[in-house]
């Protein structure tokens, strides 16, 4: 093991500098101004105060915990204070510089109003700046004190702080699901009430502590159960989970079901792309094409418009068009796959990227307008109906999407463990060697591509029907990138990871409407942070996790000069 270098205060200052720069960016992109009116705790703490404090708190926390590990508690306080105050100092300097340097000429958000918002209270000028730095110092010290706490309590505190903020931000959404009395107690018209915030904090703190203490014991207890009992347990958990999923729309209400639907579309798509990228290791950047093909097939076959098409093909119902839409996507996957899959790596990525754009431009083109609807798109797409039922509301659609997720999950989970799955794994690891194992590269790659395309087509067909109308703009390259990001954030190759990733990247931004303006900004920041701190994803696949963690350990390839030493110890 490499010995950790003793922590110097210069390191702490550097971290503080990063925090300060992040805070300045947040101020200059207009987030501070926008969130000044959003209270976390009504009339006490605003969202921008929380954000700015976080920019001092986070570096101070990391600086302090590293200082404490190598130099002890005393130094950790100083390190926290240094990091916190330097972050605040940068913000203070920005506040002082805005007016004299006329920064507004470059940054539209650098207004005198922003200066007021950055400065604490009604203070201004040097006094304000000094108080601001002092505030940063206090935040830094608090962060450092937090690192003194035992691990369980420390993690619980941070979880609780983040949760309080989230619960305040998601007020509109949460208010729908909780009983009226609770709502009255914890929420004011603008943010949490003081007593509500304290209650939420304490409750989550207790739960988080208990969970951390009990979870390992629970795991051990489960591991000690005989296999037959564990199977029963697994079965019961699955049933409970499914029951919850099926009961969800009734609890969630219309808006949340709408969001759940959107997340569902992405889950089905991501499960498909997971086969292509996660299992077989083929980087497909034009995945949206298959989604579009599914959606457009559904649209063209079921709309009453497009007289030219109607003169050839009768108008179909949703259920008649669904298999055709999925089939069309599958065929497209095979057709594109044949020429493309002989290339590898970067080349494959570029070609698929091009294919995605071709499809989008085709449906957009004027030449194909009589068939595809052109820039105006297609409207009047059929809704699923049958047995006297018709899926119109988001809640009704939720069930259909849930079922398609379950189907997609079942298929990909089985594929992963199959012979086909092993061949994909071999191809992902080393194409040449896989070929030397007599694995037909093109054939197996084609299978992966077609599976992915099929699931994208399924998702697209439901998407088209749900929207009722569609325009080519819904199918730009960002969709492909989003699905890929869902995989990366969730954990490449992992099925639960897909669900977690879709909720985190598609669901949360949808719910955090306040961030809407800054959505892509936050999105980018989150992706960068993920890759730095948790490259294996939120819920990684067991195999992938192992390989990423192995990279941090020295490789064991030293020779054993004794050759076939029989007494060699076998690590297990």
């Amino acid at each position: 093991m490499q010995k950790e270098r003793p922590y110097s205060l210069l390191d702490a200052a550097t971290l503080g500098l990063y925090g300060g720069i992040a805070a300045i960016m947040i101020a200059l992109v207009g987030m501070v101004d926008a969130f000044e009116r959003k209270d976390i705790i009504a009339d006490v703490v605003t969202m921008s105060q929380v954000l700015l404090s976080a920019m001092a708190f986070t570096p101070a926390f990391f600086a302090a915990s590293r200082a404490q590990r190598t130099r002890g508690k005393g130094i950790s306080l100083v390190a926290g204070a240094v990091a916190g105050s330097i972050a605040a100092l940068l913000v203070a300097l920005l506040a002082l510089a805005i007016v004299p340097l006329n920064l507004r000429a470059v940054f539209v958000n650098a207004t005198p109003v922003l200066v007021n918002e950055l400065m604490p209270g009604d203070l201004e000028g040097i006094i304000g700046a000094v108080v601001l730095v002092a505030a940063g110092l206090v935040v830094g010290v608090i962060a450092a004190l937090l690192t003194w706490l035992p691990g369980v309590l420390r993690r619980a505190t941070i979880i609780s702080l983040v949760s309080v903020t989230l619960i305040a931000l998601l007020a509109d959404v949460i208010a729908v699901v909780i009983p009226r009395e609770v709502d009255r107690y914890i929420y004011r018209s603008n943010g949490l009430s003081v007593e509500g915030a304290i209650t939420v904090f304490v409750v989550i703190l207790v739960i988080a502590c208990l969970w951390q203490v009990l979870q390992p014991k629970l795991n051990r207890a489960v591991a000690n159960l005989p296999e037959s009992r564990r199977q029963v347990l697994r079965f019961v958990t699955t049933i409970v989970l499914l029951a919850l999923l099926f009961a969800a729309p009734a609890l969630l209400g219309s808006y949340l079901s709408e969001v759940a639907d959107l997340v569902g579309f992405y889950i089905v798509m991501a499960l498909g792309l997971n086969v292509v990228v996660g299992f077989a290791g083929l980087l497909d950047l034009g995945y949206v094409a298959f989604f579009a093909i599914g959606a457009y097939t559904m649209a063209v076959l079921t709309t009453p418009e497009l007289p030219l098409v109607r003169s050839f093909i009768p108008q179909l119902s949703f259920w008649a068009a669904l298999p055709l839409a999925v089939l069309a996507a599958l065929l497209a996957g095979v057709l594109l796959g044949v020429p493309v899959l002989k290339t590898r790596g970067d080349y494959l990525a570029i070609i698929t990227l091009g294919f995605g754009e071709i499809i989008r431009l085709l449906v957009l083109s004027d030449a194909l307008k009589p068939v595809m609807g052109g820039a105006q798109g297609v409207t009047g797409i059929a809704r699923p109906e049958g047995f006297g039922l018709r899926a119109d509301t988001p809640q009704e659609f939720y069930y259909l999407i849930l079922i398609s997720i379950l189907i997609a999950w079942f298929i990909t989970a089985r594929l992963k463990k199959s012979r086909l799955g092993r061949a994909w794994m071999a191809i992902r690891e080393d194409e040449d060697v896989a070929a030397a194992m007599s694995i037909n590269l093109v054939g197996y790659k084609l299978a992966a591509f077609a599976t992915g395309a099929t699931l994208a087509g399924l998702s697209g067909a439901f998407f088209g029907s749900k929207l009722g109308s569609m325009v080519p703009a819904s199918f730009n390259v960002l969709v492909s990138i989003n699905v890929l990001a869902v995989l990366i954030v969730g954990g490449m190759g992992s099925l639960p990871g897909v669900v977690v990733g879709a909720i985190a990247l598609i669901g949360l931004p949808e719910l955090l409407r306040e961030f809407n303006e800054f959505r892509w900004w936050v999105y980018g920041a989150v992706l960068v942070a993920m890759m730095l701190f948790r490259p294996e994803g939120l819920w990684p696949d067991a195999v992938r996790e192992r390989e990423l963690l192995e990279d941090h350990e020295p490789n064991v390839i030293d020779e054993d000069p004794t050759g076939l030493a029989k007494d060699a110890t076998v690590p297990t």
Partner: protein
Amino acid sequence: MATLDIKNLHVYYGHIHALKGIDLHVEEGEIVTLIGSNGAGKTTTLRAISGLLRTPEDTSISHDGSELTQIRADQIVARGVVHVPEGRRVFSRMSVQENLTMGAYTRKNQQMVKDDLDYVLKLFPRLQERRAQKAGTLSGGEQQMLAIGRALMSSPKVLLLDEPSMGLAPVLVETIFDSIEQLNRTRGITILLVEQNAQMALQVANRAYVLETGRITMSGDAKAMLSDPKVIAAYLGL
């Protein structure tokens, strides 16, 4: 009829003419070695045989009389011509056992696969000890054993070995070469061996070819070459 017969093999990497018309044949049951310095085209030759590279129209590579240049890499393996690539490319995240079963991916007869697995584990007892271990954590020598063992699992008639001695301690090189001789003798597997370690290669081989910048400059009996002054000066460093 030679089991592996190569006529007029040309390979181009863009404008670079890497192999300039090679003629080479390997008889059944032989160990033939291809020696030469860095960049002579040894690896390229093997990659062309196993179908990983494209060859021009007038090149002919045949195995037991049937042409290999027109079929895919995986079909060539199915014919029994199996390549062990250089640099011990094992599936590092799979266990030793999984690597070996990967080798028998397309074989149907489970009993024969099991017999071959037993044979490989007897040939390389070290792999037996480490069956459950991840291949990436094996030592270099063990990975080479695994790469060869994995190739054996596809029940090859001809084994194309690319630099099995690369980066290994001398003791391990001996072990590996002993195993190569053994599987040639006991299983009758024909071997085309590419080596930079000419000394070792010429000792185990029946015949040898010397490759220099894309051309074969010498060929003949391996033992005779060991005492050939030109070979000694250029490749044996004595």
